[in-house]
């Protein structure tokens, strides 16, 4: 309860800080301390967003589609691999270090290569999103599976449970919190990944729109789209958190007890 109050208070604090920064920004622009072509005022950014609302939504639909496709594929692949690695110690030992090493490759830097190989269509975008989403979900799942309590496993075996039953009654539900912390990261990566891949070419999408307005020096539109993308990310993370609450009801009911100091 105490933690909850503090949380709301924190939220209020950060909101008022954001508001103060926004006012400061508007003031700097209104007093013409920085020329408007370098830094557009918040009001002009909002105007730019409103003026281009319809095309922006069209581009957003394309980017969201790519992000969603990549995310779905990434999560599906993560499930397959995590289950396989959990079942086979050999696969686990062989693959886990490799997966960790691949994460040192800056995935975003692969984008130009992907475009080179796959052209300007949606394919390279989806593949990039897939690559950035796969890792956090796979590692979350795998760690979650591995954390299953060995005593509880013995107990379920003593009840005559087979591997499949142990998976569905113990491992999978136990891994959900970790899956969701991975998923929250993956979801925000997915939209950013799609936008970055679109920078490198294509005919529609928020990234394509961004490069176009940049080339025409329409910085107000540029800012509008940056805020829009970050807003989308926040929205998607919120939705993920909501889904987590729905799917892990035991954690929610625990709040009261766990937050005792």
């Amino acid at each position: 309860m105490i933690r909850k109050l503090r949380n709301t208070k924190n939220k209020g604090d950060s909101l008022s800080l954001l508001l103060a920064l926004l006012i400061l920004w508007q003031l700097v622009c209104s007093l013409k301390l920085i020329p408007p072509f370098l830094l557009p005022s918040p009001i002009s950014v909002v105007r730019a967003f409103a003026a281009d609302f319809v095309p922006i939504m069209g581009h957003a639909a394309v980017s969201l589609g790519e992000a969603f496709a990549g995310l779905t594929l990434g999560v599906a692949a993560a499930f397959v691999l995590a289950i396989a690695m959990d079942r086979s110690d050999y696969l686990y030992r062989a693959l886990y270090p490799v997966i960790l090493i691949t994460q040192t490759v800056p995935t975003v830097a692969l984008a130009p290569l992907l475009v080179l190989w796959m052209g300007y269509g949606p394919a390279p975008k989806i593949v990039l999103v897939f690559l950035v989403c796969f890792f956090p979900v796979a590692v979350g799942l795998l760690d979650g599976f591995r954390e299953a309590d060995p005593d509880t496993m013995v107990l379920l075996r003593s009840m005559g449970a087979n591997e499949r039953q142990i998976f569905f009654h113990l491992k999978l539900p136990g891994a959900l919190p970790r899956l969701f912390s991975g998923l929250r990261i993956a979801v925000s990566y997915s939209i950013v990944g799609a936008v970055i891949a679109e920078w490198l070419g294509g005919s529609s999408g928020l990234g394509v729109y961004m490069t176009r307005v940049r080339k025409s020096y329409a910085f107000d539109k540029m800012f509008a789209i940056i805020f829009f993308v970050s807003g989308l990310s926040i929205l998607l993370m919120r939705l993920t958190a909501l889904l987590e609450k729905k799917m892990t009801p035991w954690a929610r009911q625990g709040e009261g007890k766990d937050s005792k100091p």
Partner: protein
Amino acid sequence: MGEPVIQDISLHLEQGELVGLLGSSGVGKTTLMGILAGVDRPDSGKVLLEGEDITGTAGRVGYMLQKDLLLPFKTTLDNVSLPLVLKGMKKSEARKQAAELMARFGLAGSEDKYPHQLSGGMRQRAALLRTHFLGNKVILLDEPFSALDALTKSELHRWFLDVSAQMGLTTLFITHDIDEALTLSHRIYVMAGAPGTIQTELAISAPYPRPADFAFSPEFLQAKRQLLEAIGRQN
């Protein structure tokens, strides 16, 4: 294979009996339980249930470990009915059967609560009810009451004697606590040595329900001395 943990062990349970298994840590009590429960296989020897060989077959007798091991993400009712579901019963039917016994196990009203919302005693009772649903009247308990405070413990003892008489359970339970063994058991086995063997078998003839001052009776004290000696003895 390494050194054997337990060797030359022969024990039996009569129907409706409550039998204690005493011994110091590391003597192989839990290993023995694992074999009886069918989770582990012995290198040699057999486990018989009403004459049938059930060596290495899990799911034939109820087995409850030290911790209650309720699944944190299932409600009490779902936890308790899990053995039935694992045996292939439909979830709704399993819940119905479990719900009927919740009250007798002192769990009425906590059907939809999660384990962390229950008290230690309630969790233990829920774990016992789940053990019962393994479908057999034989249950093996590995230090079932050791994690509870003294008051909850004696309350649970009384309750357990009650329930096991009503339901005709046959129980083998591990304990470190000599007083607990003496309070509950018809018979007590003492394990000692390395590899562990059965050192002593002791019958407690006092009838149930045992009087509140049973712990001060000469029979109790004499048996306690005998047990203490047996626990300390090496092969």
